[in-house]
């Protein structure tokens, strides 16, 4: 290691030691109102997935990036204190005070571990890849599969804590510490000079052991006796890995520095009040992330590393503004409204004012560079040359054109030449020959000079207020203002790649490249458009703004830090880099920013695809989709920041073989990816912390194909199949049409055949009816039949007996069509041979005949009226009642002779009724059910009562007129808008 490098390391180390001050930094408090389970916390742990587990007396809280989740009774935890959570192999174990050990299963539920004996747990720690557990009954190691006892001389004692360092593991008992030496555990009793001392925790570094006990904090250097540092009841110890020991006690927080304990407290809680708060655990992750578990005030997060602020309390009384800072000979010189300060090793070592020789306390600009022996100062009362102790002042009376000097620059090619600018008097060169002034008459575009720098080729670069940027090559001035949105240029500095950066009063930064300015404004990520300072630290550009904090341009990205990120002021008048840190001077003093270059973790909540919501895992495989599919993901940055700094997210989708550009950072964690083309994509997302910190880049591979019917692999068979299907369909359709036509022709032929058959049946039925009505001297005999739309089974007949008498029959075969026609035919044929028989034997005989014919469910209902000289013998089988009108009495009588229709049952009984029929005007009307059951459009039947009434009404009419009247009754009832549903048949006999 060379001398310079060693020196550098030493400087960095000293600065770090100085700056790792727990009293500085930002704090954030999490209490039950923030969503944690309880303000009474036993332990806080960060797992390998950057999740924070908080063990409380009311369950466990998981802080997972920007999400907080509570685990309690509903998640299987017992109603008792959770004293510790440990993560091993991504399995979470929870130790309870008196209910044993629990672990978190795959269903996000805690299950009691049955591998451990003893519900009272003293401690649980990760020891290597194993879990060490000390309970009332045993001290064991658990490897995730099996338990192993410590053995090898490990004492049967309560273990309160386990200290693990790179080279040793120390088990801490109440009065002893146990370490492994060789294959044996060796117990060392610790003898304190007080009684009833119980060790609670142990820490060892740099050869010093620290014992935290109920009676105080002791230290022990090798081969030396114990030394009491503090009498506080120590509950927790941790260390920043360099020199600061953090001590949590029953009465607040302390840190050990230079052998002395100093108390500190979160900046939102007064130190006095915090001294009532026990601090049960301290988890030092790094200088930017320290967690404190308190018993009563909740959880605290502290960042002592990122930004530390210094103000009047620390010795920087800047008078309200820091105007400039330069590094010179290992120290930083700070120009303020209240003199010049010297800052080194975290301390403001000197403060120069007018009393110490300054021409004015208002120092507007500084310039020097390594290798020269002076710092030049521009003040409100001339310029000054400072050698580290004394000031040599040059004022107006020595030839300086103006008292107020706005800019000063030491020529980089000749340090004996100094350039100054003034508000109204142009540019001035000062050298051994005195002051030489340049003004507008010399070609200077404006006499108002606000800043001066020098390009690599030696040309002066001048901020000319109200004109632009001017380059002076020793001979002439050249103005650049093309593309400059605001000519009120107040700052100039060299940017990367030979560019010139110009800070304007209200239009952001103009970057001069190829003789033209390109503006950078707030919408590009700049904190504010009023630029107050510009600085190039060699790899990044810094812009202090008036009101918007400081912005840094790094790797193509703008980062902006402001008061919400922990800066002491949003007005940043000066920026300078020192030992890897950035010093920012503003109206509230000095902020020192130390970049944390470690990447933080980033993950996603579930990824929503058009097909399903997929759980995100860091090892998830390739997601597939089709062009124009939209994939949604919500990023969750696992970065814990006590300041309210914003996290932004950017993404890009590198298509195979092509590199894409990052998107503009967005505040919303909702990210969507809509692939426009087929191919393999590596979709990358990164989170950006304002404080120049970025997350790991998380990649999600996608394979995007065309929608299946456009993908050549599937489209050819698909569209081929479709075409084939269409072809087959056309062929089938043609065949179908052909067959349909044939079928229709067949059907039409069949219908025609059936209609012809029906017509034949109708004709046959009609043929069975008498062609003419009998004409006798004694009776009017009228038969009538009106067929329904179908061929019904009604019929009537008049048959003359050998004695000249007549038999009238009126029948109704059940069913319709040809079958009923056949029944009628059979009946009529059989009847012809029975005409001489009385009605009852006739019906009996017909019943037997029809049963023999096996006519199925068809039946024959039949009325027989055997007309004698003065009477009618009437019998019926299943027919509606006949109506008899006695002219003598003038009464109409219903004659109902109930009996089963013919063909129903063997031996069915039939009865006969003899009706007197001797008076002129006597009438008998037989009918089928066609008229009484005729339904109009309202589904109302004519009914027997109306029929009877009508006959009574027509009784004085002729038989023909009675028939017509009954037909009229039917027609009137149907009103032309309903059809007769069954045959309607009457037989009317009237005595002349």
């Amino acid at each position: 290691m060379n001398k310079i490098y060693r020196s550098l390391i030493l400087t960095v180390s000293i600065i770090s030691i100085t700056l790792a001050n727990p009293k500085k930094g930002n704090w954030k408090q999490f209490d039950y109102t923030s969503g944690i389970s309880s303000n009474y916390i036993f332990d806080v742990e960060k797992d390998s997935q950057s999740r924070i587990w908080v063990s409380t007396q009311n369950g466990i809280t998981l802080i997972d990036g920007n999400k907080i989740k509570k685990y309690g009774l509903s998640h299987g935890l017992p109603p008792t204190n959770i004293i510790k959570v440990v993560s091993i192999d991504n399995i979470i174990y929870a130790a309870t005070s008196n209910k044993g050990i629990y672990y978190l299963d795959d269903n996000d539920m805690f299950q009691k571990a049955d591998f451990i004996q003893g519900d009272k747990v003293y401690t649980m720690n990760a020891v290597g890849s194993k879990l060490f557990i000390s309970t009332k009954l045993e001290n064991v190691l658990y490897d995730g599969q099996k338990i192993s006892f410590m053995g090898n001389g490990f004492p049967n004692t309560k273990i309160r804590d386990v200290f693990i360092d790179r080279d040793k593991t120390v088990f801490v008992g109440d009065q002893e510490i146990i370490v492994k030496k060789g294959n044996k555990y060796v117990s060392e009793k610790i003898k304190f000079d007080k009684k009833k001392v119980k060790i609670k925790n142990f820490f060892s570094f740099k050869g010093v052991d620290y014992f935290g006990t109920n009676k105080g904090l002791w230290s022990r250097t090798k081969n030396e006796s114990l030394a009491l540092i503090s009498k506080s009841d120590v509950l927790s110890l941790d260390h920043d890995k360099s020199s600061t020991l953090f001590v949590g006690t029953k009465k607040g927080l302390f840190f050990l520095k230079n052998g002395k304990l100093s108390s500190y407290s979160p900046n939102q809680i007064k130190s006095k009040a915090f001294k009532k708060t026990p601090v049960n655990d301290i988890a030092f992750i790094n200088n930017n992330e320290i967690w404190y578990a308190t018993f009563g005030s909740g959880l605290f997060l502290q960042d002592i590393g990122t930004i530390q602020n210094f103000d009047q309390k620390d010795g920087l009384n800047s008078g309200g503004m820091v105007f400039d800072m330069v590094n010179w000979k290992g120290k930083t010189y700070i120009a303020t409204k209240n003199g010049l300060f010297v800052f080194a090793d975290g301390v403001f070592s000197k403060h120069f004012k007018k009393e110490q020789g300054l021409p004015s306390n208002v120092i507007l600009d500084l310039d020097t560079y390594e290798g020269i022996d002076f710092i030049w100062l521009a003040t409100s009362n001339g310029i000054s040359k400072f050698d580290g102790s004394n000031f040599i002042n040059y004022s107006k009376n020595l030839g300086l054109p103006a008292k107020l000097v706005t800019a000063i620059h030491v020529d980089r090619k000749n340090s004996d030449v100094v350039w100054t600018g003034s508000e109204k008097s142009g540019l001035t060169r000062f050298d051994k020959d005195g002051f030489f002034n340049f003004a507008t008459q010399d070609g200077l575009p404006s006499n108002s000079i606000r800043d001066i720098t020098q390009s690599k080729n030696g040309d002066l670069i001048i901020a000319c207020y109200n004109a632009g940027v001017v380059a002076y090559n020793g001979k002439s001035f050249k103005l650049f203002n093309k593309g400059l949105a605001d000519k009120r240029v107040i700052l100039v500095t060299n940017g990367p790649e030979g560019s010139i950066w110009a800070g304007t009063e209200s239009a952001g930064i103009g970057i001069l490249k190829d003789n033209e300015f390109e503006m950078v404004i707030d919408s590009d990520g700049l904190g504010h458009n009023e630029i107050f300072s510009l600085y190039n630290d060699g790899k990044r550009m810094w812009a202090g703004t008036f009101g918007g904090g400081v912005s840094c341009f790094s790797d193509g990205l703008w980062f902006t830090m402001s008061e919400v990120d922990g800066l002491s002021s949003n007005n940043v008048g000066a920026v300078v880099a020192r030992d890897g840190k950035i010093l920012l001077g503003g109206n509230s003093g000095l902020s020192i920013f130390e970049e944390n270059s470690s990447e933080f973790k980033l993950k996603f909540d579930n990824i929503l695809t058009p097909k399903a919501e997929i759980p995100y895992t860091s090892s998830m495989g390739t997601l597939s989709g089709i062009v124009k599919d939209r994939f949604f993901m919500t990023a969750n940055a696992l970065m814990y920041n006590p300041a309210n700094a914003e996290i932004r997210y950017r993404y890009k989708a590198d298509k195979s073989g092509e590199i894409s550009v990052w998107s503009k950072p967005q505040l919303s964690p909702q990210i969507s990816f809509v692939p426009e083309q087929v191919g393999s994509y590596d979709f990358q997302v990164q989170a950006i912390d304002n404080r120049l910190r970025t997350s790991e880049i998380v990649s999600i591979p996608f394979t995007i194909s065309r929608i299946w019917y456009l993908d050549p692999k599937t489209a050819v068979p698909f569209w081929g199949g479709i075409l084939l299907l269409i072809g087959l369909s056309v062929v089938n359709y043609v065949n179908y049409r052909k067959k349909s036509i044939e079928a229709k022709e067949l059907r039409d032929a069949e219908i025609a055949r059936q209609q012809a058959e029906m017509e034949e049946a109708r004709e046959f039925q009609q043929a069975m009816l008498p062609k003419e009505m009998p004409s006798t001297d004694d009776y009017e005999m009228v038969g009538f039949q009106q067929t329904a739309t179908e061929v019904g089974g009604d019929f009537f007949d008049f048959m003359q007996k050998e004695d000249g008498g007549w038999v009238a029959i009126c029948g109704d075969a059940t069913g319709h069509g040809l079958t009923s026609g056949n029944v009628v035919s059979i009946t009529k044929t059989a009847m012809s041979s029975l005409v001489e028989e009385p009605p009852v034997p006739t019906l009996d005989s017909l019943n037997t005949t029809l049963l023999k014919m096996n006519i199925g469910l068809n039946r024959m209902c039949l009325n027989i009226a055997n007309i004698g000289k003065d009477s009618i013998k009437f019998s019926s089988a299943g027919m509606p009642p006949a109506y008899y009108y006695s002219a003598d009495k003038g009464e109409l009588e219903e004659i109902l002779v109930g009996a089963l229709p013919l063909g129903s049952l063997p031996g069915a009984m039939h009865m006969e009724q003899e009706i007197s029929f001797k008076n002129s005007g006597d009438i008998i009307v037989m009918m089928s059910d066609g008229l009484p059951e005729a339904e109009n459009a309202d589904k109302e039947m004519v009914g027997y009562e109306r029929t009877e009434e009508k006959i009574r009404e027509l009784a004085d009419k002729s038989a023909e007129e009675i028939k017509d009247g009954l037909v009229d009754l039917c027609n009137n009832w149907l009103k032309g808008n309903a059809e007769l549903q069954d045959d309607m048949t009457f037989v009317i006999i009237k005595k002349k």
Partner: protein
Amino acid sequence: MSTAILTTSVEKIQPSAIIKLDGPLNDFHAKELIGIIEDLLPQNYVHFIINFDKCIEVNNYGVSVLISLISSINAKQGKLIFTNVDAHLEKKLKMMGLAAYAEFYSEDKVALESLIEKL
């Protein structure tokens, strides 16, 4: 003649079954009733209460079907009971001789009680 569908529901109360007709008992659907009763008879349901409350039409063919059931039911010493029969239908059933082979009741409950009493 109605072409509406006849639906039937059967309530079994051993050895009786109440068959509720909903729709027309005519040429188109009346045979379904034969199938139901022929299925139930072997299961020792021998008394049948046929409820005509929702029966919209009974034509001669429907009555023929009812008649055809008589012999099967009689063979099992069963009874055929009609309930909820309106006046027109009652007249039709009586004139077609069914009064000698079946009983008429106003409702199923009365018919069932009568059956139980007789048994």
